[in-house]
């Protein structure tokens, strides 16, 4: 564990933030006036208006067990004139949205969209432009996350869950195999060696690698791809960069090393055998986004099954990828649609949820990592989670935040590529390369070519 790991200093964080802001300013023609306040203690943004003045109804499509639902409850408490209505939705959410979009009414005022969805719907012009709100807080928000809500310089959503990935490990299982707990900066090759030992001696895996390569298994590819500076496409989403440079080829090769090591947990992600392995100690480690914690915690309820025994460390080092030893997987953005009848109320809610201390705290209590820097720099360290039992988790998260890339683009092409956990194109090429049936360089090239074909048609459909 990082015995000497310090929580990220506010100074360092704000440096990162300032860098991000500069980048954002360079990218946007209209810089915002609001000055950064580097020397001040992070000032929580004041709640904009006095309580009673806001009225209206906000409709949110999502679960009652949801960070945005919790924020809605807090919002109602603060503004009693506002009604926050949650409509329970199923996995057929997009069908319902499409129907409402075609009908011109009926879409929710608030929806929680994945990064590539924001980019797709933003390009389609159906999302509410919230540039004015986001610009106002641009410097207070994690730059890597704001980039995901931006299409052609405009913001189509309030940056939400920032989800920097880390490596989770159970020291007790390592110990059983006689492997010392990872010190800082473990090399990927050493990580795999340790994984093999643990598999052999403790019948436990330090990473997930199912035979289908989907879900969590794809992190074995995604993480080196991110660390090595890879990108599926450019920021516009028009040019496929997947096979440019060597990031993809090297990342596949790194994934193949994990595959060949044979030490991964061979279970489909979120399948019953996967849950069984977690509880039975056959999963001693995994690359993971922060939101996964909730999924583990609902299964892992006793120390015997691993409650409180998990620790988190920064991902292993891929040679040449030391600067960005994290990844983003999942992590949604709060959006609304142009057809909303209460755009101002929507913007107030967005501001409250991710640009005030109050809102950030509520969503963090639920279990996501809000992008609001004043909160992150002061309060993240106080977050405790039963799965990890101490603060190590948030220390690591703090460090991972500084390792994030601002030039990683989760465009619609990113969705098509399937690298976010599987999809027909991913399935077509990834496992054959793992099995050695397909040469890696040739495979990446074909994958990228298919992606070009598919992306071209997608872009045509948006014209």
């Amino acid at each position, binding site marked *: 564990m990082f015995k000497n790991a310090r929580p990220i200093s506010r100074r360092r964080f704000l440096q990162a933030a300032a860098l991000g802001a500069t980048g954002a300013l360079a990218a946007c023609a209209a810089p915002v006036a609001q000055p950064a306040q580097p020397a001040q203690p992070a000032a929580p943004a004041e709640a904009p208006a006095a309580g009673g003045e806001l009225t209206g109804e906000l409709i949110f499509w*999502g*679960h*009652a*067990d*949801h*960070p945005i*639902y919790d924020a809605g409850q807090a919002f109602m408490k603060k503004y009693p004139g506002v009604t926050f209505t949650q*409509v*329970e*939705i*199923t*996995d*057929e959410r997009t*069908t*319902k949205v*499409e*129907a409402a979009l*075609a*009908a011109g009414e*009926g879409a929710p005022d608030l929806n*929680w969209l994945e990064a590539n969805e924001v980019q797709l719907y933003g390009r389609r012009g159906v999302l509410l432009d919230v540039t004015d709100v986001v610009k106002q807080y641009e410097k207070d928000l994690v730059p890597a996350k704001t980039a995901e809500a931006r299409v052609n310089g405009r913001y189509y959503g309030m940056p939400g869950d920032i989800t920097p990935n880390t490596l989770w490990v159970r020291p007790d299982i390592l110990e059983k195999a006689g492997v010392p707990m990872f010190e800082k900066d473990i090399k990927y090759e050493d990580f795999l060696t340790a994984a093999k030992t643990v598999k052999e001696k403790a019948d436990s895996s330090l990473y997930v690698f199912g035979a289908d390569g989907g879900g969590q298994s794809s992190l074995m590819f995604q993480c080196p791809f991110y660390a090595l500076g890879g990108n599926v496409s450019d920021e516009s989403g028009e040019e496929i960069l997947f096979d440019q440079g060597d990031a993809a080829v090297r990342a596949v090769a790194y994934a193949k090393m994990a595959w060949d090591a044979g030490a991964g947990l061979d279970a489909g992600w*979120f399948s*019953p*055998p996967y*849950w*069984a*392995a977690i*509880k*039975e100690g*056959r999963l001693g480690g995994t690359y993971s986004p922060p*939101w996964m914690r*909730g*999924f583990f*915690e*609902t*299964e*892992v*309820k*006793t120390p015997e*099954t691993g409650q409180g025994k998990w620790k988190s460390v920064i991902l292993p080092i891929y040679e040449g990828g030391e600067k960005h030893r994290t990844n983003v997987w*999942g992590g*949604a953005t709060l959006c609304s649609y142009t057809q909303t009848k209460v755009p101002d109320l929507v913007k107030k809610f967005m501001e409250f949820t991710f640009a005030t201390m109050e809102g950030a705290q509520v969503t963090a209590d639920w279990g996501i990592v809000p992008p609001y820097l004043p909160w992150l720099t002061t309060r993240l360290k106080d977050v405790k989670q039963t799965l990890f039992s101490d603060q190590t988790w948030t220390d690591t998260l703090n460090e991972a935040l500084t390792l994030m890339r601002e030039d990683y683009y989760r465009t619609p092409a990113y969705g098509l590529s399937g690298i976010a956990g599987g999809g027909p194109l991913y399935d077509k090429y990834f496992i054959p390369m793992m099995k050695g049936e397909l040469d890696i360089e040739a495979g990446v090239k074909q994958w990228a070519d298919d992606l070009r074909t598919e992306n071209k048609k997608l872009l045509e459909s948006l014209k």
Partner: protein
Amino acid sequence: MIGYALLYAFLVILAIIFMFPFYSMVVGSLMPKEELFRSYPQLWPPNGPQLTAYRLLLQIASPEEVAASGLQNISNYNFIRYIFNTLLIASVAVALQVFFNTLAGYTFAKRHFPFKNQLFGVILATLLLPAAINFVPFYLLVAGTLGWKDTYWPFWIPNLATAFGIFLMRQFIASTIPDELIDSATIDGASQFQIVTRIVMPIMAGGMVVLGILTFVAVYNEYILTNLIISKPDLRTVQLFLANFKQATIRAPLYDLLFAGSVMATIPLLVLFFVFQRKLVEGVMSGAIKG
């Protein structure tokens, strides 16, 4: 005798295979979520059966159980109401479909009239198209033009008579009812409607039960259309409600509630089946046909 023994052996083995996933569902519903999935599925709850998930769904759980459930807002839901809604939708749909499909099925099976085959061809042709994207115009029509959002009309009216049902009833009637029977009734001066209600429907009771059960189960388990049309919590169906528990994106799937809810949702279907399956006894209609 050996033949019968083999027959029973086969039927029993098959029954075990057919029962097993259902049995797993019941067993799964009787244990807490953290015990639910283990390597080698459990045949019996390791800590004895627990009814927590059922109590949660029926709103009779203790506050501690609610706190541990991972779903603090469980009291917002009304499971019994959702079952009732679903039964209402399915019953009306079955009554309409069985009646109108039998009427049309009989007409296509036994009557001769101009353009009969062309019209039947049209009916078959409508089965061909997989209309995955057509929910958009359907929604525009039903929710927009007709204003049937948050009502049950979209489950009843557009499927008043179905290609599948007409085709099924036509084939049943074609293979069962002799022409002579219809002819003699016609000679006796019975109207077409009387022939259908007094002769065809009694003989085809088994076939109508088959169509009724198929329709009932299909409507009962449907949730894509329901999800499109229904937003008001009070009008929710049980499948729409259960679909939320399997969500795998922002919330951990609540398998314990999903399992228990599915078991309870299945009970009305099983009762229904058990009651109506008597109509499927072989050969009983023999006498009726001769009658």
